[in-house]
């Protein structure tokens, strides 16, 4: 019983021509009481993995322990101890909020009252409203209420804020923080890097069915070697708004600038990770002028998990980067 979730060498292959390997040998350990983020672009295998962990999909191979129990042997016990919010469940429009929670509550031998569950997601005032009268954010909070009504030890939240407006996302974040503070273990999938950065103790970054990075958000960002990112394009002095492919020798010179740890060129965009932002930007402008180029579309910011992902895969995440 060392881990709340422990899965080893997990594989899931869907029969097709050719077979689709959604999960390719995954190892994942989630500690008790932590909020663990599973990050990755669409199609990275996040939902497949989480549904295997939730016991909704059989794995092709590998071992999974949930709260020290195994699917296939202790299904009922595991289901009583976990809470689940799926990516796109459409609850019945005709029921009220309270009726919906009461229905889910009835499946568990021990559960919170309907009022307690609704209070945790701040939906008490909507208790008598029909589901079809709720906003997107309220519906998502209701889905979370259905997941926590059994007061679960382990909670799975699959993309709980996808498609929500910024205010609603923050409301959901607050609920998750509260659950985390109450000692619940949470496994959260998201493709918003900022969400993972704010909420998660540790994150695993998924790509193509594998974990390509694992650690606390700070650790992962520090692995870039700097905490500032400068992003820009090259343009000819005569045409400052038409980016051109940066010459390799200039990129090499940039790598030698003081405090610069990474220089990457992705689709005519240069990303440079460093620690001393003002000095680096000044040096850059000078360097480009010397070669008859100008900086185009310059922006600077603190490094994020998004940059970690780009560094590891050379791809951008579909992120709103709120």
């Amino acid at each position, binding site marked *: 019983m060392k881990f709340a979730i422990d899965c080893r060498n997990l594989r899931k292959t869907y029969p097709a021509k050719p077979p689709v390997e959604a999960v390719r040998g995954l190892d994942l350990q989630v500690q008790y009481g932590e909020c663990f983020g599973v990050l990755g672009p669409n199609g990275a295998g996040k939902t497949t993995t989480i549904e295997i962990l*939730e*016991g*909704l*999909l059989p794995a092709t191979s590998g071992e999974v322990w949930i709260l020290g129990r195994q699917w296939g042997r202790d299904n*009922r016990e595991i*289901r*009583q101890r*976990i809470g*689940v919010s*799926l990516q*796109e*469940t*459409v*609850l*019945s429009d005709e029921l009220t909020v309270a009726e919906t929670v009461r229905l*889910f509550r009835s*499946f*568990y*031998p021990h559960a919170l009252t309907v009022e307690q569950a609704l209070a945790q997601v701040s939906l008490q005032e909507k208790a008598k409203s029909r589901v079809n009268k709720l906003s997107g954010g309220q519906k998502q909070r209701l889905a979370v209420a*259905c997941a926590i009504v*059994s007061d679960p030890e382990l909670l799975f939240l699959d993309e709980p804020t996808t498609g929500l407006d910024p205010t609603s996302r923050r409301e959901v974040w607050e609920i998750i923080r509260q659950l985390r503070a109450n000692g619940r273990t949470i496994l959260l999938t998201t493709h918003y890097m900022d969400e993972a950065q704010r909420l998660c103790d540790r994150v695993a970054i998924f790509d193509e069915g594998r974990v390509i990075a694992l650690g606390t958000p700070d650790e992962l960002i520090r692995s870039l070697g700097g905490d500032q990112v400068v992003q820009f394009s090259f343009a000819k002095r*005569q*045409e400052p708004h*038409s980016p*051109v*492919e940066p010459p390799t020798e200039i990129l090499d010179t940039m790598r030698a600038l003081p405090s610069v740890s990474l220089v990457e060129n992705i689709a005519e965009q240069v990303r440079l990770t460093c620690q001393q932002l003002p000095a680096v930007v000044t040096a850059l402008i000078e360097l480009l002028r010397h070669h008859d180029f100008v900086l185009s579309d310059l922006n600077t910011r603190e490094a994020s998990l998004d940059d970690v992902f780009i560094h590891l895969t050379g791809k951008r995440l579909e992120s709103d980067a709120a």
Partner: protein
Amino acid sequence: MSNQETPHETTPNKKSLAPVPHGTGSLVSDWPIMILVRTRLLEFSRRPAAMFWTYVFPLVMMFILGSAFRSQGESVSQVAIVSGVHAAELNTLLKSSPELAVSIVAPEEGLRMLRAGRLALLIRTSTGDGVLPSSSAHAVEQPWEFVYDPQRAGGRTAELLVQQQLRLSAGAKDSLLFHRVPYSEPGGRYIDFLVPGLIGMVLLGGGLWGVGFAIVDMRIRKLLKRFLATPMRKSDFLLGIVFSRMLFVIPQIAVILLASYLAFSVSNHGPWFDFLFVVLLGGLQFAGVGLLIASRAKTMETMSGLINLVMLPMWTLSGIFFSYENFPEMLHIPIRLLPLTPLLDALRGIMLDGQSMFAFPLEMASILLWTIGTFVIALWNFRWTD
């Protein structure tokens, strides 16, 4: 300004994005309307279910119904003669007409067949107008009574066919004696025949839509999957669906019975317990059929198609609106294998003839088998996740 000086290598991607003009010389196949039509055709042809229901299903129905009505040649009117003096002689006379199917029956049996819609016309010796049957005279000269429900299609036609046949036999003489008896006592009218048919139809539709469609809807909304993630017992869920369906059945049937009683004085002539038992068992049977066809369907298109596939043959063949006795003899066995047919036969036996359900052992066994069979296969085959 300095466009000419721009090295060619730096703009290849821009060049490929430059719009190609849709001049007058563009191909007809590139016209928006052509592309739109093509797109619709492609979408349609890549949906096999839609292709099946559009092209194959109407053909299937055409062959079923077409062969049902064709194999008999011309349509034949079912006529019965009540046994008695001259019955056999009349039988021989009428049998020479290819448009009449004639049999000799006992008086009670004749009335029962008339009630069940299995006869268009019942012929019996007249007892009215003081004209007495004579044992010496010819059958043609006898006073006959033609009994049929004027509300029901086919009775009048059968009467005319019989008259025509009698005239032919009597030669030029036009001395036919007959007496028309409209058969419209409660229990024997078309409406009496129709009400049990409607009850069966409601049970059929309720099972397929109320159970089957509802389950597929929940599967599409991923609600089934969400339930699966809880410790809910699968049996609780399925029984909940079926029981709630059964609760809808009772008021539904009560409304039909009450309305038909108030408007047409239709009533149940049999034991109420048997009637209720058969109705509930029928409801359960179609809940099972609904569960079975919903057990794997993943889209509404598939489900609507399956519902049509199951419902249409029963609507047309099982005898909701007219007796399946009108179909050729060889089709009776396959028709009676459909789940709705035995239910309607038993319901009509109870409601119209006042019989008990034990008078229909084969029918009851069929309903029971369909109920158990569909539930077992549905549970074994049921798809919870998508």
